[in-house]
């Protein structure tokens, strides 16, 4: 079975750790790369030697370059514009959600409080994302809020 490449940019060390533990328990084979801020993430994505990931998880509030800015950079760059982007945030503000979708995010995830919920949620996202990568589904319309 293929390995799915995943990246997460989140400045909170605990959130990164929990995310890593949760994704390791998902049945799909994944390879996760972690970043502490948006700037290092974008630098990595634009590196010539980088194989682009199947999905990018972005925290909204980050130092240097925040999630909104990363999203804008990704959608406006020819090499990155087709990436699946999932916002991974504590904010449940309707405005944040709508704005990120309008700016081109595919998925909006409210960080859950319980680890069990996080596991379920990541499993769901990875399964749907897998289908988008392997079936004739229209990626331009891929919006998911959980």
């Amino acid at each position: 079975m293929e390995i799915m490449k995943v990246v997460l940019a989140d400045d909170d060390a605990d959130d990164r750790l929990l995310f890593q533990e949760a994704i390791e328990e998902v049945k799909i084979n994944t390879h996760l790369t972690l970043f502490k801020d948006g700037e290092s993430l974008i630098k990595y994505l634009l590196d010539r030697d980088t194989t682009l990931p199947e999905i990018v998880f972005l925290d909204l509030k980050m130092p240097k370059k925040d999630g909104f800015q990363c999203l804008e950079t990704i959608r406006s760059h020819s090499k990155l514009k087709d990436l699946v982007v999932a916002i991974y945030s504590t904010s449940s503000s309707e405005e944040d959600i709508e704005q990120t979708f309008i700016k081109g995010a595919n998925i909006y995830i409210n960080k859950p409080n319980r680890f069990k919920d996080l596991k379920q949620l990541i499993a769901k996202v990875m399964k749907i994302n897998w289908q988008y990568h392997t079936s004739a589904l229209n990626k331009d319309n891929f919006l998911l809020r959980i």
Partner: protein
Amino acid sequence: MTLNIAYEYDKVVKQILHEKLTELGLDFHLPNSSEISINSHLDKQQEDKLKKTLSKYAIEIIENPKVALVNTIKSSINQWIAMDAVNGKENISDYLSKQLNYSYSHLSQTFSEVTHTSIESFIILKKIDLAKNLLIENTLTLTEIAYRLDYSGVAHLSRQFKKSTGLTPSSFQAIMAKRQKQSQ
């Protein structure tokens, strides 16, 4: 002089396979246009020869038969969804097992194993994907979309749409319209 031709893909493939496999002296039968069932063991030399012969016709042997089966299931599902529902249609399990010559339990097990998703969830995903396209085109009402995709009504479609995407059909439509406006 130009001649226009029409052909049936399935029949062409079956005919080519039939001729070529006979030439190679194999004991075989063709259950459908995406499978060859060979009644003996192929040695390496025979297998290479078969691959080489078929490659001339752009026919490729898929190494992982489960992945191949899943691809066939997906295209049959797409056909089933596109079928006219006016006179009521066969349920998906009967349709798939008839089309693909396997028991539904075998098909559904293989599908889940390869894709991590059940056939039922895939159908929902696919139907909602079509609903999204129709919502963006904005030429049909929600009632018409529900009818076209064989939902019992708007409420049923809206419920499944919300469950699948986390958004209501109308908020999805509004977001996509704003997105389009912004990118112009």
